[in-house]
């Protein structure tokens, strides 16, 4: 064990000062120290994407990054997308199109999809399948996830047009 480090993370808009060992993974700090349990641990090898968060504007698998590397970062997790009274378009679309079953991949899946739609607001089915390939789902066979993401893209675009 080595000496603990002082780390500052801004998670879902809230700043946290944390004392953590240098070897502590970001997912561990989020879940165990900050009680942000939306992101999950599925593989700890970067394959499954259940731990996906947005870090400084990029999709990141928080199971293979040290918390110390994230010092000073802005992080968004599933908890920071929408609220019970005003759900994110993706949260609505996943429900509407049966884009989830056991729910374990869902926080990472939606967090990644939100970033994907920022990067590419008008994706094709192929774009979605490729852009979401870092997130594994064991239940749905992806077809309804793809459908949900495409529907959310359309909903977001419609809302934007209406606002203009």
């Amino acid at each position, binding site marked *: 064990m080595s000496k603990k480090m002082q780390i500052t993370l801004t998670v879902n808009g809230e700043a946290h000062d944390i004392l953590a060992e240098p070897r502590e993974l970001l997912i561990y700090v989020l879940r165990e120290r900050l009680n942000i349990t939306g992101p999950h641990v599925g593989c700890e090898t970067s394959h499954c994407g259940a731990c996906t968060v947005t870090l400084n504007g990029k999709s990141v698998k928080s199971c293979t990054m040290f918390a110390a590397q994230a010092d000073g970062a802005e992080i968004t997790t599933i908890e920071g997308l929408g609220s019970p009274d005003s759900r994110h378009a993706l*949260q609505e679309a996943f429900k509407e199109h*049966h884009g989830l*079953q*056991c729910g374990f991949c869902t926080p990472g899946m939606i967090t990644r999809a939100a970033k994907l739609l920022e990067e590419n607001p008008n994706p094709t089915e192929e774009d979605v399948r490729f852009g979401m390939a870092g997130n594994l789902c064991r239940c749905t066979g992806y077809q309804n996830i793809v459908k949900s993401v495409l529907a959310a893209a359309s909903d977001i675009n419609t809302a934007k047009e209406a606002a203009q």
Partner: protein
Amino acid sequence: MNDLTPDREDRVAKLKGLGCSRKRVEDARFTQGKGNYVDDIKLPGMLHGDFVRSPYAHARVVSIDASAALALDGVVAVLTAKDLEPLGLHWMPTLAGDKQMVLADGKVLFQGQEVAYVVARDRYVAADAVELVEVEYEELEVIVDPFKALQSDVVLREDIAGETSGAHGERRHPNHIFLWEEGDKSATEQVIDSADVVAEEMIYYHRTHPCPLETCGCVASMDKVNGKLTLYGTFQAPHVVRTVASLLSGIEEHNIRVVSPDIGGGFGNKVGVYPGYVCSIVASIVTGKPVKWVEDRMENLMATAFARDYWMKGRISATKDGKITALEAKVTADHGAFDACADPTKFPAGFFHICTGSYDIPVAYVGVDGVYTNKAPGGVAYRCSFRVTEAAYFIERMIELLAIELGMDAAELRRINFIREDQFPYQSALGWEYDSGDYHTAWDKALAAVDYDGLRAEQATRLEAFKRGETRKLMGIGLSFFTEIVGAGPVKNCDILGMGMFDSCEIRIHPTGSAIARLGTISQGQGHATTFAQILASEIGIPADSITIEEGDTDTAPYGLGTYGSRSTPVAGAATALAGRKIRAKAQMIAAYLLEVHDNDVEFDVDRFVVKGAPERFKTMAEIAYAAYNQAIPGVEPGLEAVSYYDPPNMTYPFGAYICVMDVDVDTGEVHIRQVYALDDCGTRINPMVIEGQVHGGLTEAYAIAMAQEIAYDDMGNCKTATLMDFFWPTAWETPHYTTDHTETPSPHHPIGAKGVGESPNVGGVPAFSNAVHDALRPLGLRQLHMPHDHWRIWKAANDLGLHG
């Protein structure tokens, strides 16, 4: 009295009952990160457990030195078999009548086996301590081949070496577990030996793994003040876990509460009891603190229950015109180090004897030899009823091979051998009574939907082009027609550790007309909170949105055997409907009293009881519920509650027709899946949206299994596929697109006619994908290629056929 009478159709729609694609009530939580999985549970003072595991597949444990680990700051305890022995917990019974080491007792029998259990302040300290436990091993000869195991002098299970019989009869070799037989062996041999046409082949269904996204884990919390043990965990059968925990620990069952919180997928992996649960309970009792154990992905793939690993030697015979006359299956089943299959007790090979499939086969025989090897124990039903997917794969390969022998189209061969609609209920040669089916209608619909004749014509054209050297891609049409057997099951022959496989539902109607129902099952993503409320809505006339469904807490839910083997809808779904009917019967008496007529003069109408012939006189279920609590009704107890324990009279037999079309590149072994069509008949359809989702998911698992997913070992017993780098789990990118379809043939013995669907796509899907690969290379001489059909193996098959020049 009641002035507003909405249209009947509107009232039905408002219920969101049977048959509607109700959106899932679970999703609001899950989409907002508010699921509550076992690893999300945090109790005050909670410690963390982690295992020292064996790097060897077969070795003697010479010594274990935990002193360095115990000296580490934050380490609370290190448990070994020696510590568990005084409690009688160093071994535990398996669901299959065998016993299994909880922690290595003298030797280890598979790589990844649990050797010592470390308890520490947090996960990092526990992992450090695992590294500090010194274990000295003496390597022993490893056996990973079940056929060699039966010839070898190396005795794997020294603890039972001298025993010539086990839980399932005679053992003919120290590494032999059982021979289980069904059917008429001599009559079958006689027919096949003198038949016009016989197809014979060894068909291997490789070892794979359910690998849910959430691994297995638990939190054990022993409250020493009041003597209560609470066990949270990823349990597909929480009530059975409670009973087993009580029997093992000696803690009275009323002092144990088992809770399955949200479960991140199960697929059979979370049915059994693992050493991690036992060690966590002991550690909590010893330390007086809650102890959490959550395995990592590698541990999940290496040490928890695998699936399949069946070597199936088959013979099928027919007349010259293609009428099947007999089927024989001689199976060598690799069970690994301990027989820890999760099957109903009396069925050591599960329901493999559904292997006559959808065909009218007059005589058949099945013999299954269970064998010990130096591999992880398990043998669970990975998204299928017990060994049904092995059976379906076997018969659907044998049919294809028979078609080759006969020179007949495989679709036509199926058609002329299907059990006819007028033969149901149908007695199979291996002892099952199929409840209902209309196979010809389903098959014709499927073939028409994909334009089967057109596909065959295109395939022939492609083959000619291939032969002319104009293309290197062959086209395969994978056919599959499966009959499942699910809904275990009748208590007279189905039990697990002596507990009959009934299931249950308890309903309480609240005074203001909403309700809660609790069941003995537990959802792992199937959407029970949504669909069971739909069953109830149609039965009792209360909107599904006003019914809470709760499962998984043994202190509150009625006893049930859990969710696996597609048994929730056939068994607990039936209990739900019948409990609902009890509510309705009482509601009828209350309504009659309120309406001042005789009980028989009112009838149920969607959401109310009406006076027969005077529909303007009625009482809604909400009014009846209120009356049940606020009026003294002569001869009727207050309240409106019911409970039903349902013992099914028979299994249910869902069926379906799946067709996969693919192009196979003979030079690279790569495949391109062009089309996957899946027609399912699961009887009455409760929620078409959920059914479609189940089919998509099961097909993707089938695709993975058939095309690349396996648990593989080298000769030293090293597991070569223990990470998601090596264990194939398809992404959105390579997963094919699916077209779903259905016919609807209700089960005659189920209260609402439903049969269960969650596992059908895995059962029917694997042969569809595999048969497509075979079909592509069949015209060039391929008979049998063992799964998985990864690029290398397909390339090699093409190479062996001389297609690479």
